[in-house]
């Protein structure tokens, strides 16, 4: 490359725009669909695809051994996500079309329906408008690896596969209590899900194949096939323990299907860490900066650096810092803005901590055009914060820092000469904690997607959690519901 050429500067608004509107994902989906369907004329096809606007609809398989609760999970999911709920049996009974008749004729002759035909049935049903518009949840399909591969080859791939699992003994026992309402086809259970309506109770019948031997046979069949299926969909499935109360299983399933896969979209992390004193903001910021090569912007440090450099704003701030007063917002913001607008921050991303402290400062920051895309609240109880800070001591001779609980001084004479930073005294810490509590609530309201981190853990555990949230995109929101905090 010509080193004398002017470096190509891309306006930062473009990156922000692309990220906010997920331009990359839109275009990626367009190319993906083009390649799957390879239409003769791509332009009208793309127009139709964009009109459909169904990139985000749920596409889910719910798999699991007999009696693991597939049906209930799929039903709850489809109700919650407003998607179409499909079952293999339902496919055969609902509509009358050529493949359905073909399948029924196999069934009439007591033969197995071939995999290819199943796949055609499913594909045809999924192409219908309710599935394309609202998304779909299919339970219990595919049940062989071949079906899975055929589906993939024909271009149908779910976004999530929920695999329910429980020990065999639980499943066999559970299956024995299964009852079916012959009129509606609903599934009930003698102990776990007994209908309240006596009319329904009277009608219930024992379905076929719930005996121990029969269940055992089906389980064996399932266990033989499931590794192959999961191998075909290795990146998108999650195993969930079904031997828990129904609602617990459901909440886990829902969290999983709302998560989004990692996107290849170019993305510069703009992280904001917020927490009480002693919650480990600086440490986490340093770890993030080190691992992801982003710029660690500590508000306090930046302000002090400006004062030391004797810049104009720095000199204006000096009296405040010397008297340990809070620096006025506009001065602090000016200095921060200088730092964040430098090329390294724009190109590599930043992790900011120590600012903003309340909603007013946060508003100033976003007015200046610096909107973080991940906001973390490091939560610790007050007494932990006090314990972490007020017991910190420094050895004036060696400069080493000690903590009476976590890192006591090695020898008595060292212990005796330890001195405490006046800012770490219990009153001071309490003062800073009060300031934190004053701002925390409104700040949480200000930022829509706050991620709460339990910071009262090992620093690396906290770091791993933060990392996972930085790398993964924000989860989807359930339609018609505000994102839960």
């Amino acid at each position: 490359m010509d080193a004398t050429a002017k470096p190509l500067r891309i306006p930062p608004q473009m990156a922000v725009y692309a990220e906010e509107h997920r331009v990359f994902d839109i275009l990626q989906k367009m190319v993906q669909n083009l390649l799957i369907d390879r239409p003769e004329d791509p332009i009208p096809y793309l127009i139709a695809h964009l009109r459909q606007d169904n990139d985000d609809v749920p596409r889910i398989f719910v798999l699991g051994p007999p009696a693991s609760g597939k049906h209930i999970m799929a039903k709850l999911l489809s109700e919650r996500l407003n998607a179409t709920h499909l079952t293999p049996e339902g496919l055969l009974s609902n509509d009358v079309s050529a493949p359905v008749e073909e399948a029924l004729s196999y069934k009439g002759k007591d033969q197995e329906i071939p995999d290819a035909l199943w796949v055609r049935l499913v594909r045809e049903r999924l192409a219908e408008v309710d599935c394309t518009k609202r998304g779909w949840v299919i339970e219990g399909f595919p049940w062989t690896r071949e079906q899975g591969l055929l589906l993939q080859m024909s271009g149908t791939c779910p976004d999530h596969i929920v695999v329910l699992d429980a020990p065999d003994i639980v499943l066999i026992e559970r299956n024995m209590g299964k009852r079916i309402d012959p009129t509606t086809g609903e599934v009930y259970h003698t102990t776990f899900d007994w209908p309240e309506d006596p009319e329904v109770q009277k009608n219930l019948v024992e379905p076929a194949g719930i005996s121990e031997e029969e269940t055992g046979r089906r389980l064996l069949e399932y266990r033989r096939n499931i590794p192959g299926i999961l191998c075909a969909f290795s990146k998108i499935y999650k195993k969930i323990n079904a031997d828990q109360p129904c609602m617990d299983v459901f909440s886990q399933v829902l969290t999983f299907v709302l998560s989004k896969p990692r996107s290849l979209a170019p993305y510069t992390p703009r992280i904001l860490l917020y927490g009480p004193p002693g919650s480990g903001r600086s440490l986490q910021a340093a770890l993030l900066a080190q691992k992801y090569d982003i710029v660690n912007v500590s508000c306090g440090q930046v302000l002090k650096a400006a004062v030391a450099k004797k810049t104009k704003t720095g000199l204006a701030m000096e009296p405040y810092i010397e008297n340990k007063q809070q620096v006025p917002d506009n001065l602090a913001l000016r200095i921060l803005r200088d730092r964040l607008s430098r090329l390294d921050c724009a190109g590599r991303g930043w992790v900011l901590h120590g600012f903003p402290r309340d909603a007013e400062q946060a508003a100033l920051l976003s007015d200046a055009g610096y909107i973080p895309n991940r906001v973390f609240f490091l939560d610790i109880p007050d007494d932990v914060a006090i314990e972490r800070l007020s017991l910190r001591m420094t050895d004036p001779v060696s400069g080493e820092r000690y903590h009476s609980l976590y890192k006591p001084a090695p020898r008595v004479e060292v212990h005796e000469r330890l001195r405490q930073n006046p800012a770490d005294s219990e009153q001071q810490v309490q003062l800073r904690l009060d300031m934190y509590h004053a701002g925390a609530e409104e700040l949480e309201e200000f930022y829509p997607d706050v991620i709460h981190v339990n910071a009262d853990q090992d620093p690396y555990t906290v770091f791993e959690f933060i990392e996972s949230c930085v790398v993964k995109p924000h989860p989807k929101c359930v339609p018609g519901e505000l994102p839960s905090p």
Partner: protein
Amino acid sequence: MAAGRELQAEDYLRENRIMELMNNLTSLLLYHRPERPREFLITQLEKLKLARLADEEYPCLFGESNVDAIFGILDPSGQGYVTGTQYTEALKTLGVDVSNLPAPREKITHEVFKHDMILHLKKSSATFKI
């Protein structure tokens, strides 16, 4: 099998000039930054569809005035022509792939320059199978 499918996909992308289309759409999107990107893309594709029928007015970031402006920058003293190197650089600025073009002549007048630029722009925004 897998390799064959991959090749087919590549052929498809090349034949229909999907990558150029996506590049153009992305630049349009990032330049205009519309509130509703989906609707914007639909409009652009509709325009492209119409332009294909009429063979004019392709959706493109640069217009005639931009070409004139570039010529003005390259020829500040008003000689009325630019050199071959300047001509190639101008094409690069407009986002045209210059690797397969024949070497341009020494002196290029304003008319030729404008005509060529517009032709190239049209070619690079006519992203469909011919």
